């Protein structure tokens, strides 16, 4: 089985600090993978390296087998990888409608396309804000917009970095429901979220990061049953 995305021996430095120290990971088609670990262990840096936002000093990134180590983020996005960044990154000078439509791209699986209408059905709050500029939205509305925008690209892999941050409990529950639906359609996901229980519940496999390394890679259900591991790596 060809992997959708994989990283081999990734090393990343920020100045003198060695942030990724040789990371190997892969995600298969239709696979849902969680990424957990304390703050500052390199989770976001790994994601940003996969997306081409951060240059690695050593190692490689492959998308569907082709070398994307030096590819630009937009090239990786066009290969079917969508990214909901921590901090949302919505376009402040575009309105809600434009933020969504600028990302629209037909999907590969007919009948399961995320359309403009479906995104608005999923986030009714956005429908009430269509003409508002990105910078006029509340934090939680921006988060919904960032997720909706990623879905508009009908990706094969959806990367969610703290996608539920700043959302009301009802909406958080809704986001997890959507993640469950997305999984059922065969879209792959890579999920970082502070609620590790929800991550374990909604993924097939989970990677644990510590100090720039993947220190555990196993199925999510069994990790959920190992409280001593969770304490060791997550401090819970």
């Amino acid at each position, binding site marked *: 089985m060809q992997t959708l995305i994989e990283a081999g021996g990734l090393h990343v430095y920020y100045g003198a*600090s060695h942030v990724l120290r040789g990371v190997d990971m892969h995600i298969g088609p239709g696979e849902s993978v969680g990424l957990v670990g304390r703050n500052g262990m390199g989770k976001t840096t790994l994601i940003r390296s996969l997306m081409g936002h951060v240059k690695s000093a050593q190692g490689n990134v492959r998308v569907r087998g082709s070398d994307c180590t030096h590819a630009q983020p937009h090239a990786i996005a066009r290969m079917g990888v969508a990214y909901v960044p921590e901090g949302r990154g919505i376009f402040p000078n575009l309105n809600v409608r434009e933020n969504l439509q600028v990302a629209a791209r037909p999907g590969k699986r007919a009948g399961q396309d995320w359309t403009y209408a479906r995104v608005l059905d999923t986030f009714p709050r956005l429908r009430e804000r269509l003409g508002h500029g990105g910078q006029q939205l509340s934090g939680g*509305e921006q988060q919904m917009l960032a997720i909706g925008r990623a879905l508009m690209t009908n990706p094969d892999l959806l990367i969610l970095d703290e996608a539920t941050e*700043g959302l009301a409990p009802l909406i958080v529950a809704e986001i997890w429901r959507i993640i469950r639906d997305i999984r059922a359609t065969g879209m792959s996901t890579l999920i970082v979220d502070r609620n590790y229980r929800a991550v374990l519940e909604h993924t097939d496999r989970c990677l644990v990061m510590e100090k720039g390394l993947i220190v555990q890679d196993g199925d999510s259900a069994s990790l959920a049953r190992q409280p001593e591991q969770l304490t060791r790596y997550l401090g819970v």
Partner: protein
Amino acid sequence: MSDVLLAATAVTRRFGGLTAVNGVSLALQRGQVHAVIGTNGAGKSTLINILSGELAASSGQVTLAGRDITAWPQPERARAGLGRSYQRSTVFPELSVFENCRLAAQASRQRFWHWWRDAASCRLSADLAGDALDRTGLAADAHQPAGLLAHGRKRQLEIAMCLAGEPQVLLLDEPLAGMGPEETDRILDLLQTLKAGHAILLVEHDMDAVFRIAETITVMVNGSAIASGAPAQIRANPEVRTAYLGEDEGAH
């Protein structure tokens, strides 16, 4: 009730046709954490902006220790003891963690500076900054450039910068967003100790945290406060459960 430090009375803010905050009243007392929870876009951050002075209220009144500060600009309110943190990190990325805090301490204390003297030699602001870093658990990162901190640590720095100004009233906008369980515990413990000398307004979506620490909770939906009271009262309020907590969440 004499220990009310900050009070808002029927505060309203309109943006064109949109009423973001609609006649909200609340009183922050020393020794209490007052949580404001509510749906996304309910006006929680706008309310904080009105209290901190970043936005003018369209109508209504804000008082600080009994003084009417409705017309005061933000810097004046900050110097009078009103501190706030932001939902998105607002740190200076190139400056060190310590320098970020020292600037915050310096800004809150306007004094005559000898122009030829290095601001770094100011003992008072250095002490305040060091103290704020100790309390928030950032001392080990003091000399790192702030931009290199992981997201959760930046959030801690945001709180440290707020404390460095020695405020009496803390307005915290989602301080726990992006923090892991250990940092969350640390910040909740910190808030617990800060309570004694401060009045704290906490906007937060982490309901475990809110119910653990708040004495009073106000619930906002579409700009209005639909309920306000003790945590047990709020948890049992059917309207709040439908609008915000979700039917199942209320029980846990």
